[in-house]
């Protein structure tokens, strides 16, 4: 990423006030309402430090949960939930045979897979389409957010999500998920996880820029021998199937999606509403007509 010229205006390390449009300096992107923003997560440079998990919990004042160890490699968080909006998955593909770790790894994290999972902020978000109160809405930054003062905890968004992201917090009785740091975006700051990522595995920016950057990265990886690299969540690719369109938070993966606990071909749930309603009504109407005919005979 090139550095924005404004970086030179702010040489200090300590600040007594916010920098105006700080995201220009930290992410090289000016945040303006009306544009489409998201994440490109390049898992080939993720080092599994979990700074994204910590930054997310800190900024959003989320309680620590899932206390204890899972025994699943370095993943003690387990999954996304109402109190966990960033989750780093660890999959050890090589080594560990006979209790001895490999001393050589294939390049580009191919032996150990690490991926920071997050809400995908789908273009045609099933959670939003399912929400009966209008609590879930598309913001001016093309992200999906749950309005906490409207949600009544019906929980219908939870099974609607094809990625198993949004969840109900039974204590406060409402649905929660990543907001793509909506409050930070409104203040000209990039999301906490993207800002804290030390390797720029999580890149924040305008969706089209990110998609171009990601495509170039995939081609570069193919050239150096990482044939497995592909994008998950761009139009036409796995993860953006079934009418979802595309995912504003998309990924560069090097193994099949299920390895990372992602579905290969999710679908837009609302596509099933029409045919289901019509079939049911047709059956009921047919039975009703038959009943009317039967009731109308005088015997």
């Amino acid at each position, binding site marked *: 990423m090139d550095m924005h010229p404004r970086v030179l205006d702010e040489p200090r390390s300590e600040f007594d006030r916010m920098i105006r449009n700080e995201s220009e300096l930290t992410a090289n992107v000016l945040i303006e309402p009306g544009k489409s923003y998201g994440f490109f997560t390049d898992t080939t440079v993720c080092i599994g430090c979990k700074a994204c998990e910590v930054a997310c919990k800190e*900024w*959003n*004042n*989320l*309680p*620590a*949960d*899932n*206390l204890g160890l899972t025994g699943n490699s370095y993943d003690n968080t387990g999954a996304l939930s109402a*109190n966990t909006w960033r989750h780093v998955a660890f999959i050890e593909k090589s080594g560990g045979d006979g209790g001895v770790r490999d001393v050589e790894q294939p390049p580009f994290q191919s032996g150990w897979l690490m991926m920071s999972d997050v809400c995908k902020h789908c273009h045609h978000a099933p959670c939003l389409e399912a929400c009966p109160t209008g609590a879930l809405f598309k913001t001016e930054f093309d992200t999906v957010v749950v309005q*906490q*003062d409207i949600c009544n*905890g019906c929980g219908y968004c939870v099974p609607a999500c094809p990625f198993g992201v949004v969840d109900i*917090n039974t*204590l*406060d*009785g*409402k649905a*929660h998920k990543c907001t793509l740091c909506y*409050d930070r975006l409104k203040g000209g700051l990039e999301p906490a996880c993207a800002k804290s990522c030390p390797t720029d595995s999580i890149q924040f920016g305008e969706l089209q820029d990110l998609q171009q950057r990601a495509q170039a990265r995939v081609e570069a990886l193919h050239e150096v021998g990482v044939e497995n690299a592909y994008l998950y969540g761009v139009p036409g690719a796995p993860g953006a199937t079934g009418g979802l369109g595309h995912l504003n938070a998309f990924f560069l993966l090097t193994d099949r999606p299920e390895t990372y606990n992602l579905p290969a071909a999710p679908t837009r749930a609302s596509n099933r509403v029409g045919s289901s309603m019509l079939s049911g009504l047709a059956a009921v109407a047919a039975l009703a007509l038959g009943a009317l005919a039967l009731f109308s005979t005088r015997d």
Partner: protein
Amino acid sequence: MSPTMTGVVTIVQEGRFQLTGDDGVSHLFILGHSAAAETEQLTLLQRRQARVRVRYRKAANLIGDTVSAIYLDE
């Protein structure tokens, strides 16, 4: 009766807020669904840096407590 804590509302995010006690120790609270207070009111309390007393219950498997009632303490 559930325990109570008194402090200043310092951070608010959605229905979660941080209360900093007189001893300087901060605790994370989650506004319970049956509490009379609403999430919008928390933001107003934080802006005023209001001093409140909360009645809470400990939450299992979480480092945080669930609030059942908030009283102004000023």
